[in-house]
């Protein structure tokens, strides 16, 4: 496995700029048949995209018994379908704190965002970030994440996390 440069890249969504228009999900679905970024409706009716944050210390990588989740040279956590194939545990789906693994009913058991690996290989960025009408999705260096946060984005993010991980 190659080491990634610096702390690598990731996707960042500023939920305070997001209007829930579903363009990210649509473009992802167009490119990959089944989208790897998915809209959810919160209890109070907001539409929010759920996405992989390519965590620096990724739980999914730790719980995958087959080593099917690897860090690529840009820092993306990518799924190796040949290793994943046939795994029924779906440990990754359960472990992901952002609900960004999606179970499938055919072929490999799960699908996840790979930051548009095929596009990155030819110098393009993730399609969702390119097409977001609001500029809410950024393909960012992990080092610049702090600069992207605002008071509004933190507050909006907390609302989304409260939906993903409801208090018991």
């Amino acid at each position, binding site marked *: 496995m190659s080491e990634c440069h610096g702390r690598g890249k990731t996707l960042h969504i500023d939920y305070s700029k997001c209007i829930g228009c579903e363009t990210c*999900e649509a473009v992802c679905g167009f490119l990959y048949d089944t989208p790897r970024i*998915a809209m959810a409706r919160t209890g109070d009716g907001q539409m929010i995209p759920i996405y992989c944050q390519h965590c620096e210390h990724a739980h999914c990588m730790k719980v995958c018994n087959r080593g099917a989740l690897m860090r690529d040279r840009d820092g993306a956590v990518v799924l190796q379908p040949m290793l994943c194939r046939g795994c029924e545990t779906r440990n990754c789906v359960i472990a992901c704190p952002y609900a960004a693994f999606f179970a499938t*009913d055919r072929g490999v058991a799960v699908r996840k965002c790979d930051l548009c690996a095929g596009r990155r290989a030819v110098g393009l960025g993730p399609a969702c970030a390119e*097409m977001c009408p609001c500029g809410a999705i950024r393909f960012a260096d992990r080092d610049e994440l702090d600069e992207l946060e605002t008071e509004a984005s933190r507050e909006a993010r907390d609302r989304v996390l409260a939906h993903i991980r409801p208090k018991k």
Partner: protein
Amino acid sequence: MSNAMNFAFMREEPAPPNGRRVAIIGAGPSGLAAAGYLGCLGYQVEVYDKLPKPGGLMLFGIPGHRIPADRIQRGVFTLSRKFGVNFHNKTKICCSAPLHEEEGDHFSCDIRGLGELVEEHDAVIICSGAWKSRKLGIPGEQLKGVYSGLEFLFPIRAVKYATSNVSVPPVEGRTVVVVGAGHSAMDVAHSAKALGAKRVVMVYRRTKKEAPAGSYEVDRLIDVGCEWLERRTPLRIVADETGQHVAALEMADGNTGETEVLPADVIVTSIGEIPTPPFQKELGLENVRKGEVRWLHMTSIENVFVAGDVLTGPSKIGKAVYSGLRAARSLTNWLDLKAQHRENEYNYDADVITRPGAPSEQR
């Protein structure tokens, strides 16, 4: 990365010209997504739009604080400069109804027929959207001071492209009643507040929990001082003493069963739009909607495709984008196979079936 909505996201540079010309009618999200896809593949794309600038309702309907206008404009700029897309603004393609019937028609200087376009291009995609506002169907809707959501929102953005026949609805210091609870109703209420309305009252026939825009959005409006009345069914719009202008909204209160009268200077009925396709019958759009066509997104006129809200009715930007991309891809498949006389090899079923989890084509 540039701060643009990159419609040409498929490639960094366009493929070499393939000698094919495609006309796209409508420069909203579906038309621009289709233009980007085809531009990347080396098509010569001509985009026609009735408005003075490309962007459709992303620019002229949705307020700027939600979608930054310059982000759309930069994406359009890239399409035109780098991908050779030609934009023909203020050009209406032959409509099913007389000109000046829809919002935004008054911008059109040039009218061209669909037949002309079909002859001049290898293919055409119609992405003209849903512009006609749904009516409540109650007495008094024709009174002055009664607007549809689009009639109210459109001029607020359009007035920047200064033409004498567009003016912002006068709401300063007045009472505005907004009927509906979808996203455009929310935008109407926010805009009315921003334009200095004295009082903004939201009226919805069901409860806050059922509001299509979600209770979160409703709560934000209440936070900025709008009033929220739920389970109210509009019955009649009452005229003032001149009989010309609106004075109040009479409605049935679903909580008490009583009739109440709400004084209003302006009433905005924001309850959705209906598609306005040119040549609805000739194109056989009903069959395209049902999926009873031999080629995905192709109408009953050969080489003419259709995508976006004009097909599905009002939806969301994402659905329109998806539909535009699919129509563009279907169009390229069609022209490629046709060039080799292999149209019968097209596998419609494989193309049309959206797998579980994929955004659905029509809802």
